[in-house]
């Protein structure tokens, strides 16, 4: 047996990583607890959406019937033309726009620019609300065409179940986000984050960190839509 006297002990490239995770006090040093908890929630939410998308994959691969062509199912008639996925494309752009305004709201929040932060939050909320409105329109259109969770006129019967489940769950997330965006907008305009006014439920001092935490949630909703757009609408 060879001597292992000369074996080098490999030091982790990022030593802070090892020491911080091995810390007996707390991990994620310097990260506000609210932000860490939001990230942990988002990881769990990632699992939920992944399970929906994985079940969609399983169903789509294992069905004997032809899967409906989303390009046609979600197409809209504009004049004499049938534009594929028009509404979905608009919804995608709206969500990206709202993500941009949210990112800027976070930036202005940390600069303690109350007005800019408030207006950008308001814009985000309105974009989000219009997204939900378009989704309601899309659902109505499909239901009128006879799409049900157990049958549809286009092909594989599982299509409806997957569609209502995935877009419905995402729409719920957007709706909750919009509600919270309006609440936070009010708090921003009232100056809660400048005066450190204590929260109604938590009695914690308000801080512009809350805007970033709100932003994390909102960007996540956009992130999920990126995956739904790719796998459900484009695939």
């Amino acid at each position: 047996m060879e001597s292992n006297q000369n074996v080098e002990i490999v030091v982790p490239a990022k030593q802070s990583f090892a020491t911080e995770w091995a810390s007996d006090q707390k991990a994620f040093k310097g990260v506000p607890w609210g932000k860490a908890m939001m990230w942990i929630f988002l990881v769990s939410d990632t699992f939920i959406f992944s399970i929906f998308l994985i079940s969609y994959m399983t169903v789509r691969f294992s069905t004997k019937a032809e899967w409906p062509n989303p390009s046609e199912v979600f197409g809209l008639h504009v004049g004499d033309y049938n534009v594929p996925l028009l509404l979905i494309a608009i919804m995608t752009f709206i969500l990206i726009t709202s993500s941009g305004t949210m990112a800027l709201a976070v930036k202005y929040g940390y600069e303690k620019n109350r007005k800019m932060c408030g207006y950008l939050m308001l814009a985000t909320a309105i974009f989000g609300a219009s997204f939900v409105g378009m989704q309601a329109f899309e659902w109505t259109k499909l239901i009128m065409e006879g799409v049900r969770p157990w049958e549809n006129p286009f092909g594989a019967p599982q299509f409806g179940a997957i569609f209502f489940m995935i877009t419905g769950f995402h729409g719920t997330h957007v709706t909750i986000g919009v509600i919270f965006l309006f609440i936070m907008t009010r708090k921003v305009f009232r100056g809660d984050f400048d005066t450190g006014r204590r929260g109604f439920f938590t009695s914690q001092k308000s801080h512009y960190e809350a805007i970033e935490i709100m932003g994390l949630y909102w960007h996540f909703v956009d992130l999920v839509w990126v995956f739904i757009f790719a796998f459900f609408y484009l695939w």
Partner: protein
Amino acid sequence: MAEGTQQHPLKIYFYVWTLLFVVSALSYWVDWYGFQSYTRWGLILFFMLLKAGFICAIFMHMWWERLPIIAAILAPCFAILVFVFIMWHESYWTLVIRKIYFAITGS
């Protein structure tokens, strides 16, 4: 490092914002142009990952976070890929069983 504050130049947000618009337009174009099969799937996945990466890294500030929290967020996501792999095989198995059943029963 994100030590409670996040201060970044305005430019980077507008840059990423524009980029997200362009990439979204490109992924819509994949459908518009009518690519099929592996070209289509490859392009969809590529644009999807590009968008997701930019949203996560810049808009969600992950690029400036500490490594321990980045690892805590991203590491569990590999479990999802394993699950995808398992169910991908499972679905083909189900399809084969179904085809055999329908062939025998004639339905």
